[in-house]
């Protein structure tokens, strides 16, 4: 293998960069919206708190927030790994580990929102 050459030109990156910004906007909107909601009618008991999040609109909004958060985290952590981790094997392993963890969190957030 041409080990002394530095190949570049993967021809991707724009989508990740754009979606990182888009997901940030989604998270900011959700945080402000939820903050406003909780300030306007603060839940007094756990049952009330639970009732807020079982409403279909907020449940979907929360799911969207989690999707945005997980994708945002993927791009951010992948960027950190690409910045600092040089050996390709280690980089790939770390990215796979982070990816797996994020998929696990996705399943977890679905089970929290739609579980009992």
């Amino acid at each position, binding site marked *: 293998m041409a080990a002394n050459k530095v190949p*570049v*030109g*993967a*021809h*991707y990156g724009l989508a990740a*960069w754009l979606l990182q910004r888009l997901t940030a906007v989604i998270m900011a909107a959700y945080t402000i919206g939820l903050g406003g909601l909780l300030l306007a009618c603060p839940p007094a008991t756990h049952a009330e708190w639970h009732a807020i999040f079982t409403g279909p609109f907020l449940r979907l909004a929360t799911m969207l927030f989690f999707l945005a958060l997980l994708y945002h985290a993927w791009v951010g952590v992948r960027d950190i790994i*690409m*910045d600092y981790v040089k050996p390709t094997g280690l980089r790939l392993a770390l990215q796979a580990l982070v990816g797996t963890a994020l998929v696990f969190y996705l399943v977890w957030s679905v089970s929290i929102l739609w579980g009992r």
Partner: protein
Amino acid sequence: MKFRIQRYDPDRDARPYFQDYDVSLGPADRMLLDALVRIKTVDDTLSLRRSCREGVCGSDAMNINGKNGLACITKIADLREPVVIKPLPGLPIVRDLIVDMTQFFDQYHSIRPYVVDDTPRPERERLQSPRDRAELDGLYECILCACCSTSCPSFWWNPDKFVGPAGLLNAYRFIADSRDRAVNERLDDLEDPYRLFRCHTIMNCVDVCPKGLNPTLAIGKIKELMLRRAV
């Protein structure tokens, strides 16, 4: 006036070290470069690059009190003592304040820093309207001193893959040139997680540019063009 200058001769020294100098300046010594030249009259082993001594050639870029700049246009009166001077960070040291700029210029050449136009040559020259020419203001002034790229953490970590602020500013200079016909090839070449998207808008480049240029803005415009052709 007190100076603390990083010295290193790879043939003799195991590692870089600091040497203190206390020199009395002459009445005409206004800029840091004047002081360094005066230090050289005391200790001629101190090595540095310099040429035009007026901020045009970009030879005497160095790290001055923690910030990259050109010694020839840095006023002595503005400097806190002892003035700590180091070579540009992140590049291999050849000797004292002289660094090996190979990686920096490799990145610069990788963006094809010339107008690409394969159409038949006009009889005299390829003309440009004053308005098209104005697009290049804030871009063409770059003197390739490397102050920006060597202050950029992304360039420190990936100098072999990330084009760096100077290279990207120049890439946009040719993308923006009305006479250039290779905008799509140029965008294709830069659409890469390392070549362009290592820029995390830290903006050290804008902070240090001795010519007052804004590489971050140019990088943003490259991304904007990519977006415009993609959506």
